[in-house]
């Protein structure tokens, strides 16, 4: 079957088998390997991308289900050379060790901050409860997301003052 979907703002299309999973469409068909393919059972969240603005596990979503829809992956977080505050936060607070869970973590974190720009620790931990970090670096991941929240708030205030 033929599918077409907007991925990170760009139109993509391909001839695929209906059983192709979205994670493989992104990684293998489009070559967007920022999205990681982990447990394959919708537990680990490494494959988290946005579908129409909501985080979903792309290992448990058919590419066919995204046909005609909008997908956003970790490759779209940075604006050119300028990192998203979430990416910056992971850097500043050492929010990653091996880095495998990071793309999914950051897509979940970005969605959380868009919805709730000032989440407390409990809210952050609940939000990332579908993203597993096998390095168990949760302390720093939570700090990284708090860093992003505080940083983007300051940034917004500075921009408003200009």
């Amino acid at each position, binding site marked *: *079957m033929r599918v077409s979907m907007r991925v990170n703002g760009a139109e993509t299309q391909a001839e695929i*088998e*209906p*059983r192709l*999973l979205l994670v493989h469409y992104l990684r293998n068909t489009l070559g967007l390997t920022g999205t990681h393919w982990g447990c*394959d*059972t*919708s*537990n680990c*969240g490494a494959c*988290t991308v946005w579908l129409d603005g*909501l*985080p*979903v*596990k792309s290992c*448990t*979503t*058919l590419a*066919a*289900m995204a*046909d005609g829809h909008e997908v956003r992956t970790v490759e779209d977080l940075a604006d050119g050379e300028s990192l998203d505050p979430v990416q910056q936060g992971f850097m500043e607070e050492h929010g990653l060790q091996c880095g495998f869970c990071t793309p999914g973590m950051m897509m*979940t974190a970005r969605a959380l901050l868009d919805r709730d720009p000032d989440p407390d620790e409990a809210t952050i931990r*609940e*939000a990332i*409860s*579908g*993203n597993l970090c096998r390095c168990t670096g949760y302390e720093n991941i939570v700090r990284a997301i708090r860093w992003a929240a505080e940083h983007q708030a300051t940034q917004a205030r500075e921009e408003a003052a200009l």
Partner: protein
Amino acid sequence: MQVPAPFEYERAVSVDEAIALLARHGPEARLVAGGHSLLPMMKLRLARPETLIDINGLADLDYIRTEGDEIAIGAMTRHAGVLDSAVLAEHYRIFAEAERVIADPIVRNRGTVGGSLCQADPSEDLSAVFAALRGTAVIRSASGSRNVDLRQFHTGPYETAVGAAEMLVEVRLPIRPNCGSAYEKVERRAGDWSIAAAGAFVQLDGEGRIADLGIGLTAVGAEHFTCEEAEDALRGEAPAEEAISRAAAICAERCQPQADQRGPVDYKRHLVGVLVARALARAAARARGEAA
């Protein structure tokens, strides 16, 4: 790498079209909504439908609203929508308490009420919630719609009252005054299936006695996800600790859990007793208007 067996893919944009596609493709066709139960089973080749009919386009079935003295929940309502629903928070707190412990927030963005009920997994939390609340499933076919008592909806593990070329479109629940509800679940780790879980509603009369109640049990082999004998024992009683313990003990005795990697039978029975008592006590406190 886990990949489903090949299948034909169809997409329905209306209930009528979904039903027509089911009729056309026969018994080896399956509806797919969020897919978070069906796709994992297809990857493990435990399910091999020849045709998948994608109903994610049926956004008009994504609603939770009051209609007269009932609450109507559309089959395509996502778990996240149930968790966030102001209507359900007002009338049945059991939903938020159950939803918070169903999988994780990302999975809840996709999984649906209808999908959960129709998957009929014996460990599904919402099945126990609906069994506790006793409502109606609205099932559509080409010839119209029919209502099925939610306690008759599940006919066995992975089996429901939904027939060939039929589709669950809505669940309806009565709004009960002076009512409280609660859900209790014990799991091995966050987001896992229950080792055991129990839900309850309690409705009080003017004297503070239990006018009506419902008990839901999941993952412990309870017939229709409930225990009517325990409900009958408690109806008409004051919701005191002793009466609640007696009903909880009946649940523990009557359910039929199986030993598995989540625990042995006696442990699961013990959990049922504790969780039913807690759910009933909290439901009763809420029915009295106490903060609980």
